[in-house]
């Protein structure tokens, strides 16, 4: 009922153009809350809520102000997102959180930057916790945009560091969704593997239309006949699940290096088919150390009835850095906070994370982890209550993921 109340306030404010009061920082959560991707939006909203509650409990913000979340539905559509952004502005939002869908993120980055240029007295900051398009911290970078997840190239750099030491893998197969994100994964995989493992054979490089393949078995047959020992894929959602299930059904014993398997519903639909075979590259998972396990349990105890488990480490980092920036700048105004965020560092549950000044990209350790069965012996925390969890197989230091940038702030 709480979220109903929040929604009500949001709309009410949108209609009567009320402005925020001084003792509150309004965080606009502009995310897809209806339609096919609504569940992901809900999950991240709960992460955000948990962190904001923690910040408010500690009460360290200057002038003992509190953070308040206003959710806005962007329907996972760039145009609708801009409408939602207008509504958020009317409601007095100073900080916008968004992450699912790079097309929405691009639209928002651009719209917020234009808004800030046209209304310098009332700037807004965009906290991007999951949109991975490298352009956002390169050619499309903006002063007002900060990214807290690693982008596609950084993740690929980390993943290829790991593949470089896996000498048992002699050939890999690239299969990706045919749109800019999948194409970016394929391109960076090709160039980085060539550099780090010149001996490695790329047995195939397929792009398939996104969300349209029902039966992956022809792809699997092709992969099988190529003799590859591992698959590198940026696929997400059913395109990933179907690929893995199909391979296992046909008895193709092969490693999967993925970006998004831990997303809600991923593990439970892949299930046993993925044990010991599916790897992911992320900035957070539950079984990195005792602290991350604690945080995972916190999430579970705050939301005992929900289906998913903690996933978004970057939401946590975004909120914590926002808090720290407000305390350090002794202000809650986006202009000051933005300056403080620019080169901020923070020790989080996985270690030191720091914001790059030159392109507003967070540098953080990344982890390659493997899907395993959890048991009392290994003491791992499972996800989605199916007896499976992730186990770290490699940690890639933050500096290793620093990429050259073309970003030039105006």
């Amino acid at each position, binding site marked *: 009922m709480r979220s109903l109340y929040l929604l009500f306030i949001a709309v009410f404010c949108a209609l009567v153009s009320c402005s925020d009061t001084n003792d509150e920082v309004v965080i606009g959560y502009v995310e897809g809350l209806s339609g096919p991707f609504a569940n992901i939006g809900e999950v991240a909203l709960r992460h955000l809520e948990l962190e904001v509650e923690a910040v408010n409990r500690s009460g360290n913000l200057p002038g003992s102000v509190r953070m308040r979340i206003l959710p806005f539905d962007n329907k996972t559509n760039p145009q609708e997102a801009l409408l939602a952004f*207008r509504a958020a502005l009317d409601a007095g939002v100073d900080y916008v959180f968004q992450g699912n*869908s790079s097309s929405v993120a691009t639209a928002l980055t651009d719209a917020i930057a234009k808004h800030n240029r046209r209304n310098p007295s009332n700037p807004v900051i965009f906290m991007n916790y999951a949109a991975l398009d490298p352009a956002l911290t390169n050619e499309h970078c903006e002063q007002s945009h900060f990214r807290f997840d690693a982008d596609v190239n950084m993740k690929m750099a980390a993943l290829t560091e790991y593949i470089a030491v896996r000498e048992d893998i002699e050939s890999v197969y690239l299969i990706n969704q045919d749109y800019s994100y999948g194409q970016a994964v394929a391109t960076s995989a090709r160039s980085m593997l060539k550099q780090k493992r010149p001996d490695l054979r790329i047995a195939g490089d397929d792009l398939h239309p996104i969300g349209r393949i029902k039966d992956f078995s022809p792809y699997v047959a092709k992969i099988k006949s190529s003799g590859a020992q591992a698959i590198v894929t940026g696929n997400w959602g059913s395109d990933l699940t179907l690929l893995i299930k199909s391979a296992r059904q046909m008895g193709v014993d092969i490693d999967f290096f993925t970006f998004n398997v831990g997303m809600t519903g991923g593990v439970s639909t892949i299930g046993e088919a993925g044990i010991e075979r599916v790897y992911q590259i992320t900035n957070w998972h539950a079984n990195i150390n005792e602290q991350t396990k604690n945080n995972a349990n916190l999430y579970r105890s705050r939301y005992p009835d929900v289906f998913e488990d903690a996933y978004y480490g970057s939401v946590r980092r975004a909120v914590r850095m926002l808090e720290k920036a407000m305390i350090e700048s002794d202000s809650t105004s986006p202009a000051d906070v933005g300056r403080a965020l620019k080169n901020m560092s923070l020790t989080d549950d996985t270690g030191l994370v720091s914001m790059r000044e030159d392109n507003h990209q967070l540098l953080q350790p990344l982890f390659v982890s493997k899907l395993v069965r959890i048991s009392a012996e290994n003491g791992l925390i499972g996800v989605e209550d199916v007896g499976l969890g992730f186990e770290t197989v490699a940690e890639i230091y933050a500096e290793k993921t620093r990429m050259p940038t073309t970003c030039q702030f105006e």
Partner: protein
Amino acid sequence: MSEILNKGRLVLWGGVAFLFLLLPFVFSGGFSLSMLSQMGIMVIFALSYNMLLGQTGLLSFGHAVYFGLGAFVTAHAINFVEAGAFGLPISFMPLVGGMTGLLFSLILGFVTTRRPGTPFAMISLGIAEMVAASALMFTTFFGGEGGIVTNRTAGEVILGISYGPQIQVYYLIAVWCFVSMGLMFAITRTPLGRIANAVRDNPERAQFIGYNPTRVRWIMMSLAGFFAGIAGALATINYEIITAEALGLMASGNVVLMAFIGGIGQFWGPMIGAVLVTLLQSALSNFTQAWLLYFGLLFLLIILFSPGGISNLITIHLPVWRAGAVKRLMPSYGFALLTGAITLIGVVGVIELLYRGFLFGGVHVAFTWIVSGLMISIGGFFLRRAIREVKQIWEDLSPELARWG
């Protein structure tokens, strides 16, 4: 010079212009202004769609293709202007979109308009699928996931108009919307417009009065593509970004819903639909996550009970109004409204409970369940009676109304 410039119509169009002028003063918030701009764009788009469905009888599931292509080409054109490659004021950019829409609908229309009905619907769906798929694949032109970003302030500042502030963009849209509405209305009053109606009603007979139905459909489709392109260009200017979603199947489906909910039988029906649907999508979605469900249910209800859409509901009451019989309908309408509202609240209660129950789990709301259930059953029971009563009065009235036809 009689028909268009007659007094009544002049007053009506003047009123519309005045309304366009006045609206931003009433709804001045940033969100309201953006929503009004969106409505203006959708009004053009829905009206252009109705040139196909309502006026020519072509059910298209791919009209957003022309909207989207117009929008993309405009985005590139604005970027060329910014780069100094050529100079066209932003105010006239919609023409670029329009010509793009026209070009593509000329090409695609040539091969698709030979048959109306289901084959046409299927071809349009197939073409829409192909265009949408290519839009994701060809990232050079369509910009990939990020789409094409533009800057509407790229042109020179003319008369203090930079198109920086939203209000200026709103008035640009308002002007184009008004002009497009006028043109599209005028087309219905031309020989082509009338023959399009004839082809819709009876394509075979049209042949025997000298017309080639395929040619008529083709021309109408091209004109519809032109106006869809204008709408697309305005969307580019308004949002300053255009992504592949704009020409996807969802966008095409959306305009079908708009036109049909508003009513395809009257020229102004789709305008109501565009305004209402935009309002529902933007406002209702802020209230509830189940807005898509309500939206779908509304659509089904309209098809089931008023296939002429909302505009038809209004039109059938005109004779009643003229006959001065509104008073006789009032009590039963009031009764139906009351019982309908009760039922609706019950249904909304159940739906919201389900959504929330599954999202946040274990909400113990037995009381709300019972109340909602009671409201549905009691409200529904009386609603049926109310509807029967309304029907009865209509039947009683019909001989009287025939005179006022």
